[in-house]
């Protein structure tokens, strides 16, 4: 190896850039394990910024989460959030599951994309108890309905709120008139 290259290699290793590449390799191993278990669980894999995202279907999200938790050590649901891509996009909504392992310290993201006319996704509250409030928040702000959720109602906005506030076509000032009673 050229001496200059070696210096760059050391510099990259010391600032953690090469380690990050190793991290994504490890994450891809988990993705391959998932794929070998059931090929339908992994529709697409996206990599960027040292993170790996697995796009999966709503039929397989519960099984994939169960497998990640029970077999691959992803024991913590760090976040569950919804996203509205805009009313002009065809799969309009997406639900992101950020899972984290406290055993081997890896993070993986699962993503389900949903159409506007049928924004239903099965709940994962039976796998991670913490998903209950996260799913309520996603329902509250984006309007994704989680089938099988034990208590799906608004959590942040007032209970008589009209609409879902973080949808892109929601007017900033809300729907008028709104009573304060």
């Amino acid at each position: 190896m050229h001496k200059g290259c070696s210096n760059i290699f050391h510099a990259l290793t010391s600032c953690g850039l090469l380690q990050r590449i190793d991290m994504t390799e490890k994450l891809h191993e988990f993705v391959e394990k998932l794929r070998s278990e059931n090929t339908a669980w992994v529709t697409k894999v996206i990599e960027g910024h040292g993170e790996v995202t697995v796009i999966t279907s709503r039929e397989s999200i519960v099984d994939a989460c169960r497998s990640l938790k029970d077999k691959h050590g992803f024991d913590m649901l760090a976040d569950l959030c919804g996203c509205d891509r805009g009313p002009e996009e065809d799969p309009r909504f997406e639900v992101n599951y950020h899972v984290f392992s406290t055993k081997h310290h890896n993070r993986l993201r699962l993503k389900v994309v949903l159409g506007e006319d049928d924004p239903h996704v099965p709940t994962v509250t039976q796998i991670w108890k913490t998903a209950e409030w996260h799913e309520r928040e996603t329902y509250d702000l984006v309007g994704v309905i989680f089938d099988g959720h034990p208590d799906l109602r608004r959590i942040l906005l007032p209970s008589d709120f009209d609409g879902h506030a973080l949808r892109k076509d929601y007017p900033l000032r809300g729907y008028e008139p709104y009573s304060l009673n």
Partner: protein
Amino acid sequence: MGLENTVFESLPDVLTVKLDSVINWARKSSLWPATFGLACCAIEMMNTVSARNDLSRFGAETFRASPRQADVMIVSGRVSRKMAPVLRRIYDQMPEPKWVISMGACATSGGVFDNYAIVQGVDKVVPVDIYVPGCPPRPEMLVHAITMLQEKIMKESVKDRRDTYEPESRESIVPGTLPVTEGTALERETEIEVAENQVSRPYTIPSKHERRRSS
């Protein structure tokens, strides 16, 4: 030298004054604000009470966490639509006489938060006596607001707040509190009425003072 010498020399033993002025003087000299810090304005409100801008110079330093012991509600910060019923309830739980200071741009008009989540002015929920502009107002401005409120209190009449003789105000009870038991015929009647018919009592009846201000 002191007050004892000068007052007794210049004034008679008995003075005749208006009842309003004496009561208002007592009320304004000891305002007890309710702590209703909602956002960054609350930091300035805390600063107002602390050593540099000593609000106790004006007799309003005794902040109370219980609305039952408070005279003034200083709404400091943005009021979200979910907070609005809570704010109203705390206002209702404060005993008369009570006043409201709307502190800062957000409490007064919604400020920069012209959106679905924020009430565009706390005067849509409670009657406001003094509006303080600023984002956030300096503690001096809140001190000025308190002194302005004191001037306003001096112009009031005690008769304006006399509203307990109205039958409908007796019927209103705040949830979680016991009804008024004075043993009057009116009270017994309403108690029997409630026990027999399960009349749903209104959550709150606006006081005469409040109706006068809102009309």
